[in-house]
């Protein structure tokens, strides 16, 4: 795989490719070194560092605007910023009372906004009901999300969540407002060990990704847990008991051996934009490709010496990017600041094709 030049100096928390509206591919990566970097990815896979912006705290998430002109970043400094790539200016667009864990750009026909999810639990009153009216499903919101009009310092709407927001995903589609075609999934961690979870009653959720059906309509989401399991979850499925399922991943060895199985956290899930297959990355330092429809594994990578902390596909699914860096799964003790962090690019055009067409 091709290594991205000038990777961040600390753990990489997020990766995101530019939307199709931009010619070429640009990759952003947020890191615990408080920065978010942008590379241009050429067709041959070579990367050219383009620019970088700083937060005053580690960057936890990042996303692009639909036109590719802006990058939004969420940070431990409790703010979210909008980075205008044309002017290379970054301005703060959101303020939370705790680190901002997730950020998503929401584009709907009559408005656009940014959704941030934070570890704070403060209630903030919103004043817009438009947004929620168009969201088909808020998947169990346990933390606190805010929807920011990027031009206004106050959130358009605030959802109070009883718990901290751990992961979220949004899919927005340019369809009529009443069709409620945008999808939203936000995840949280349950209080204590009580089984609030969806698919994993006792497990912490680490990542979520919405998937769409053949007509590009969001139909469900995949949820990654802290202990080597991913749940595929349909919204309003015809047959819930049959359609929803979980699968194990990121584990050391097969169940048939007598040795205890090492199970690792699923750090990231990404759906292939064309094939609808998905990739998962884990603390075990591997990435795997799956076909949820066929319920089969497409590929598992070699093990890297570090966890894979984030992954993403580019807009046409040709490039799969994944970041190799410590995810803090074993705490500070196992953190080696000297260890280099990598971002790798992989040609994903073929590997993620479903094998058996149904």
């Amino acid at each position, binding site marked *: 795989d091709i290594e991205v030049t000038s990777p961040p100096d600390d*753990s990489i*928390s997020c990766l995101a490719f530019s939307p199709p509206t931009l010619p070429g591919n640009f990759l952003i990566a947020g890191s*615990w070194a408080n920065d978010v970097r942008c590379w241009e990815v050429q067709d041959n896979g070579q990367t050219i560092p383009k620019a970088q912006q700083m937060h005053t*705290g*580690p960057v936890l998430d990042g996303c692009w605007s639909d036109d590719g002109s802006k990058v939004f970043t969420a940070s431990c400094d409790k703010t979210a910023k909008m980075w205008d790539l044309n002017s290379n200016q970054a301005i703060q667009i959101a303020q939370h009372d705790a*680190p901002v864990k997730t950020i998503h750009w929401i584009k709907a026909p009559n408005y656009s906004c940014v959704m941030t999810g934070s*570890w704070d639990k403060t209630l903030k*009153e919103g004043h817009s*009901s438009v947004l*929620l*009216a168009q969201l088909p*499903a*808020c*998947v*169990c*919101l*346990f933390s606190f999300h805010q929807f920011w009009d990027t031009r206004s310092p106050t959130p358009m709407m605030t*959802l*109070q*969540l*009883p*718990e*901290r927001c751990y992961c979220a995903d949004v899919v927005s589609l340019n369809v009529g407002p009443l069709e409620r075609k945008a999808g939203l999934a936000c995840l949280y*961690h*349950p*209080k*204590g060990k*009580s*089984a*609030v979870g*969806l*698919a994993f*009653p006792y497990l*912490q959720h680490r990542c979520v990704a919405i998937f769409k059906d053949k007509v590009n309509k969001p139909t469900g989401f995949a949820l990654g847990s*802290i*202990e*080597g399991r991913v*749940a595929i*979850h349909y*919204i*309003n499925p015809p047959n*819930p008991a049959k359609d*929803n399922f*979980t699968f194990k991943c990121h*584990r*050391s060895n097969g*169940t048939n051996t*007598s040795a*205890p*199985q*090492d*199970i*690792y*956290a699923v750090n990231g899930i990404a759906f292939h934009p064309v094939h609808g297959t998905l990739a998962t990355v884990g*603390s*075990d330092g591997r990435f795997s490709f799956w076909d949820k429809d066929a319920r089969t594994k497409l590929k598992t990578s070699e093990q890297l010496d570090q966890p894979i902390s984030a992954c993403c596909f580019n807009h046409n699914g040709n490039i799969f990017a994944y970041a190799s860096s410590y995810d*803090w*799964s*074993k*705490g500070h003790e196992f953190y080696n600041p000297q260890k280099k962090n990598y971002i790798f690019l992989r040609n994903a055009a073929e590997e993620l094709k479903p094998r058996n067409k149904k």
Partner: protein
Amino acid sequence: MDEEKTARYVRWVEGSLPPQERKQRLPRLLEQLLKAFLADGRYHQDGRFVDRCIKLAEFVNPPCVYFDYLCGQGIGTTASAFYIAWAQQLVKEGLIQCAVSVVQKGLRNQAQPQENLQQLYCWLQNYNPWNPPLQGAATVKPLQTSNAENQISPQTGVTLNDVAYTCRNQGPDSAGTQSCSSEGRQQVTCVTYISKSEVLPTSSSSSAVECKQVAMYDKNLLVCEGSELSFEELRANRYFKKYERFKRQKEQEEEEKEFVRRKEAAVLELQALQHKLEQLTQLTKSLEETRLESASTTSVAPNKTVVHPHVALSAALQENRVALCQSSGLQPQQGPVPDQPQSSTLLSKSLTLESAKPAGHWMTSASLMKATYRKDTIATQRELREVQNRLVDPPCSNSAQERAHSDSAVQWSTGEEHSKKTSSTGLTTCMDVEVSRAGNASFASGNASQATPNTSLGGAMQATPFKVQPSPTVHTKEALDHDGTLKANVVAPVVPVFSIFEDEDEKENNRIPPPKTKTEELRTIGERPMTECTEEETRTPEFLQDDCIVWNASCTNKTLASCPNNTRDFTEAARLVSTPFSYLSVHSRQALEDRVSKNDLQQMDLEFSEELHKKAKTKKLSPALNLIARHEESQGNAITATASHKLHEQTTNCRAEYSLSVGGDKTSQEKLSGTEQDRTARTGEPSGSLSVRVDCLVGEGAFAQVYQASVLNASDPRNNQKVIFKKSSTAPKSFMVTLNLIISCLEKGKYLPYVRFLDNDTCDIDDLSHGLTLIDLGQSIDMKLFPEGTAFTAKCETSGFQCIEMLTQKPWNYQTDYFGIAATVYCMLFGTYMQVKNESGTWKPEGAFRRLVNAELWKEFFDIMLNIPNCHSLPSLTALRSRLKDLFCKSYAKEIKFLRSRLVVLLIEHKRSRK
């Protein structure tokens, strides 16, 4: 700030104190907290604050009244917890109906979270008096948990396949309801909670079946109260801890810095005090010496001047312990004086008669007047001895006390201050107090002007009181070189009379611990009058103090000498305005100075005569002295001069020129102006004159000294405006004066104006407290003294200050100002003095502008400032200024506070490095 602290303290008390102690302290604390935040409407709905308020209710009796009060104040009106607590209290008291109305009120106000209120409301509705009453806080919990009943049936898309599961998941669900209610009903429908647990049983069962699994993450690390952390949270926690530590460390460092700064200030103050003390001790010594010497002089040449006896007399009076024999001839006269005020008058008369010799007749009489006025021999002695300096002299009073003379005025004086090491601050205060008590208002003003600080040098001088030699300082030399007349004057003959001045110096020393440089400088000034005084004495012995007009009319410039104190100030004043004069002939300059001094003299005289006629007039207490009396106590600072001060500003050429003239008394000032028209032209309207108290020498360049002074404001003596004036000994200027000035200010612990300077975070460029303010451009000519359109061809000596026109031998007028501005700007940009070069007909400063911020603008700036077509087409400074100002405001408005702090830090560092 304070509120924050209180809040934090409360948190601490609640969190970390043992319950017993907490119980004791909490009520008071909470009360404080309530008081602190009550006024601040922002906190009225703050949950933490409301909680505290509710808590306080436990300690308030009766609590319901307190709740009512809180409600009236608008505290917690939107918090259901507040209404619940209130209602519970009412229920406890059996007032169910009241409780119901309270809850209703809460519901009306849409207090959040509403569920709890509704619960309580339902409960109250069904309240059965036979039911056990509610028990305190316990009620709240059940209410919350009873949310379960409130659970709405599953919403669309939600499949609950496990009832038990729902129950267990009370928390999130209820919270979900909360969010819905808070966001309004329409939104509720949209929030879809999906509890898809279809897979749950299988997954859990399968995992149970599975062989041993080892989670490859550290579960223990993730454990946190009632929840589990994500890896990111874990890491973020660590990050924040680190960050906090770093921040605290930084804060500590800041505090330490601040502490060091304060300590330094304290040390400086201490040094100043010690210095004063030293001076006092020295003074005591020298006093003794003086006494001895004067005594010997008397014995050697008893008839030389009248002053001798006086000196001897006073000395003898002051020193009880040492032999009185030397001035024995005069001693008998004193005998009766101390106890009989009237005899003192007699004495003074006789003394006046005796002093009908050239020895500054008027002085004697002046002092005599005072003596009469005071009805105090000691005062008389003092007067005689001090002549000019009517300020009460501590050693003097000291001796007075020793003599146990019943002098009402004496009581203030801490008799043995110097020996007791009492702080000189107190001393100064005492003196001032004394003066005012004595009611010698006009004298006091005289005093004020005399209060020239002196240093230990003065003490050295006093050891040889009769050898009044000009102490050559750099400034003196320069002054001499530039002014022949002055030079001539400065050569002070050794005349016994000067012993008086020496004494005076001593006195000054007594009062003030000024910097050395200043002493030298002042002495230089002081010497000249002495010389003149002698001449004066010989020439105009017949002039008496009463008739000021006559006296004034006839007095030559020499007269000023007879009023040395004033003269001193005048000399100073004259020098202050020296810049404009430097281009005049020596003669005219001298003349001007003379005029100034004349004025001064006149004032003094006026005061005397007034004194004679209206002795009891207390209103004569000059504002200056008044002020001193009331203010110096805190500072222990010296009063160097009382001077009227007029600022001339020629806005067109940015020239600021300060002229100072002596005179604290407005009445006399007015009278003055009547007689001297041309002077008024220079000093401006008499009403525009100001009384200025020179506080200290704050900076010194090669050619000038800069003083900090206070504009005395009689109506508001506590709020003196600080002014800075520069006194150049020669025409040339030093660009760095301003900077030095601030440094010295900091050095001397004069933070006051600068504190304000730091606090001011606005970016008003016209605000003088903004930052460094350039007080002059070095060279200046008072263009009003010349016909309009005058241009000059002369050049100043210092090549660095020669403007382009001077260099190219062209006529110039305001070009020198433009050049001065450019040179100053250059100096600030590059840190060196500006050198100019001519590049293909355009004058440019040396140095590369490429690396400068805003290089283009500066380039243009210098191009404009240095290339002035001719005397009649001067570039518009206003336009340039507005451009610079715009740029400044644009680029630095946000940073100005930081920059100010930086400046102060730099200055402090600079000060340190100079040490």
